[in-house]
């Protein structure tokens, strides 16, 4: 049994909050540069150039890539041979988010009650925390700040099994086309297929933290990812929705067994600033 201090978790989460908001990951940055080189629309090309410049300024000056520094979504995989000491785990995560967002000059965008008061919590807590117990004696933390320009364009459909692959394709392409400029294209499309209603939406979110240079390990789903990317880019929505060849940088699908009577499909969209940072303790 290995022990890990709650304070070490707070420190890690604080650093991840800042790193994720300042440093665009290499896979996304490279995809923006590649899109810029291949884009046909002169205006879209200029926009993509500005986005790569923006990522460089953010990196060099430790400035947020986007002013919407998001709600902190935290995925933790806790090894079953780890004993967390010195504090409550959830409080430790929130303490880390508060520290990172305050000390990192990140925007506090969380309100305490979603419907009535909507009062800002002033430290961007609470995080949305997803816990998983895995073999081993380590803790892996992935922090993904989620902006709501793109989050608001998410969709869920309880498809019929008979809708099949064509039904999934239509749902995805319609969702991206209807979102148009709102989620700040070029986007990353996260899709969760299968499970139950909450499992599908969780998988869609999880799909967004997979590097976009990596395809689904199942060749059938990997091919569907490629086909969907081509279809989404054929909509013409383009960078910032102003027309062009690059509406999405990638489509990532995660799947899970489901019930004989159903086929849940969830779509979670991320903007070009698809941010996440991770650490293993």
């Amino acid at each position, binding site marked *: 049994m290995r022990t890990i201090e709650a304070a070490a978790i707070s420190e890690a989460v604080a650093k991840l909050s800042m790193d994720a908001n300042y440093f665009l990951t290499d896979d996304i940055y490279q995809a923006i540069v590649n899109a810029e080189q291949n884009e046909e629309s002169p205006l879209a090309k200029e926009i993509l150039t500005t986005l790569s410049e923006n990522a460089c300024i953010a990196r060099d000056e430790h400035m947020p890539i986007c*002013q919407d520094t998001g709600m902190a979504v935290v995925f933790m995989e806790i090894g079953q041979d780890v004993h967390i000491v010195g504090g409550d785990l959830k409080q430790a995560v929130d303490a880390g988010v508060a520290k990172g967002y305050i000390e990192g*000059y990140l*925007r506090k965008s969380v309100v305490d009650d979603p419907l009535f008061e909507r009062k800002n919590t002033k430290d961007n807590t609470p995080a949305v925390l997803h816990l998983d117990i895995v073999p081993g004696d380590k803790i892996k933390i992935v922090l993904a700040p989620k902006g709501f320009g793109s989050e608001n364009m998410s969709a869920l459909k309880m498809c019929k099994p008979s809708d099949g692959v064509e039904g999934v394709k239509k749902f995805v392409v319609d969702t991206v086309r209807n979102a148009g400029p709102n989620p700040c294209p070029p986007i990353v499309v996260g899709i969760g297929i299968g499970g139950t209603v909450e499992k599908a939406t969780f998988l869609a979110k999880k799909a967004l933290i997979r590097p976009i240079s990596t395809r689904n390990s199942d060749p059938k789903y990997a091919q569907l990812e490629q086909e969907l990317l081509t279809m989404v880019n054929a909509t*013409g929505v383009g960078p910032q929705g102003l027309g062009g060849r690059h509406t999405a940088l990638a489509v990532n699908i995660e799947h899970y067994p489901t019930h004989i009577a159903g086929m849940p499909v969830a779509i979670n969209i991320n903007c070009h*600033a698809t941010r996440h940072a991770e650490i293993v303790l």
Partner: protein
Amino acid sequence: MTDVIRITTPLDEAAARSLKAGDSVRITGTIFTARDAAHKRMVEALERGENLPVDLHDQIIYYVGPSPAKPGQVIGAAGPTTSGRMDRYAPRLMEEGLRGMIGKGLRSSEVVDAMKKYGAVYFAAIGGAAAVIARTIKKYEVLAYDDLGAEALAKLTVEDFPAIVVIDSQGRDFYDEGRKKFSRE
């Protein structure tokens, strides 16, 4: 580079009506910031028969909630937020003389109708180019609704602030035109 049109604020009706969907512009002068919470307060003030905290005649509102400035900075990251959340309030402000709106994303038909009626323009700034845009902001001064934090009503002094006319005062929509031009569906 596509051709760039330089404009200064205040922007009168004739200048606004001369701008066409698809034009790239650089804005210099004073612009105001407000998001949904500040819009709600402004429209509620008008409904009570009160004056607005600022005279919006021939002015431009930028839909932005900046991140906090670090010591020595004018403003933190400052890209546009999604404009659709302001649709419910924007026509009332155009009635008060508001000439331009800067944001990103789709607008309702009510907003477009009001733009045609009053001669207003909707500009898009590049969503997520928040660090680049911040460099064109030279001064940030909160004018009202300080309690809203990042959502306060503020005055920005900008130099060559980059934007694109997406919906002009004739109601032409460059989002629609741009997508159709590149669609292969």
